[in-house]
């Protein structure tokens, strides 16, 4: 541990982890460089684009704006922790089915923002989806297929 670093204890995707970090290091860098979880992306680094979105203690956050010191003891969900046992979640499958990803760079943040929305609002309207994803910018797709994916994931399963 370098001088000035702290011992950061976090539970990431259900696994307790300990990592050395400067207290004002961005959670984004701790996840990517300290813990090797590179699914979380850096886009703007200013809290505008949502590429670095993760869920911390049950709330969607921009990991580029969270200083490590404020993540002490937190439960963090990154894109790597969403699928369980190798099978995609209903939401992730909907992104695949609806072609909700193009270059894929915004996708981890987009999927986590959508997962957060569906937890708060299980069957969202298009307006609710667009508001829930307003902090996540995609420069490829034009959003229609992303919105389709979230609608499909949110819609109640068809009963026979």
């Amino acid at each position, binding site marked *: 541990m370098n001088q000035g670093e702290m011992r950061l204890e976090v539970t990431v995707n259900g696994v307790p982890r300990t990592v050395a970090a400067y207290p004002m290091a961005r959670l984004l860098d701790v996840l990517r460089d300290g813990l090797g979880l590179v699914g979380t992306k850096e886009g703007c680094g200013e*809290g505008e684009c949502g590429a670095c979105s993760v869920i911390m203690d049950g709330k969607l956050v921009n990991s580029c*704006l969270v*200083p490590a010191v404020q993540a002490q003891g937190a439960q963090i969900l990154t894109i790597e922790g969403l699928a369980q046992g190798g099978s995609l979640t209903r939401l992730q499958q909907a992104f695949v089915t609806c072609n909700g990803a193009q270059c894929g760079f915004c996708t981890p943040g987009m999927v986590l923002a959508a997962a957060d929305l569906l937890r708060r609002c299980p069957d969202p309207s298009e307006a609710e989806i667009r508001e*829930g994803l*307003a902090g996540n910018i995609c420069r490829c797709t034009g959003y229609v297929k992303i919105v389709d994916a979230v609608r499909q994931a949110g819609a109640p399963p068809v009963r026979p």
Partner: protein
Amino acid sequence: MRGDAPPCQVQVPGSLGEALLLMGQEPGRWRPLAGGTDLMVPFAAGRLEATRFLSLQRLDELRAIEVEPGTITFGTLVTYSQVRQHGAVQRHLPNLVQSAKVTGAVAIQNRGTLGGNLANGSPAADSPPSLLAYGAEVELASVRGVRWVPYEAFHTGYKRTAMAADELLTRIRVTVPAPGFHFYRKVGTRAAQAVAKICLAAFARVEDGIVREFRVGLGSVAPTPVRARSVEAAILGRSLDDLPVRAAREALLADIAPIDDIRSTARYRRTVAGNVLAQMLAELAGSNGDPQSFCQPQ
């Protein structure tokens, strides 16, 4: 990292008393850090001079929205998400709920705090116009004691505030307004994330068709958020049937001092601020003095 973060020290006090003691021992040396949504941007880019931070994350006593007869008091660490979701705030302070809704997007609203929004001192912040329209007060605390300051007197210049070097903004208190007319409009490049080009909030109480109480706050049109005192003077005591819209627009020019910057121009801001003011007055006139018809549920 986008820039090399300078070596820095962070203290995490366990109580408000501990935080104030530290600020009192070395006034101005410790930069309070709340949700980080403003500070982390210049910090990570190497553009922030401060290297000593006081992280307020453990001060749970400053996280509550307290509703008492006649007042609603916000702890400085209350987030925009809390503001949006709180029933009494939705009922009584709809402009503040609108402010919270248009500040960033969900991830920012989950972390950004009301106190941080004010203490950061940006003239383009989204909650100040609403707090000005509601005549809010702020509590400034230090080891020397506690004082309440009208929010209108809090911003003393661009990014300058009435806080002494050893003071922390701890609470924001709003007197619950009588039933009346609430208006909030932010103009930006898009609904989410964008920083305002201009923002206007107003509250009016009307009795027998006469405007008896009227406050207007604006953002992004001066070095600080401003209260439009000249506009208020032009409208107070006037009948809804005969609101002097042109005179109010003229008066507005004395209340604001917009500049050209990366987001807009002074000319655009003067024109659009006048247009939004006229729209607000038209809605006020159209409300016919019936409070129920224009206290919009959010």
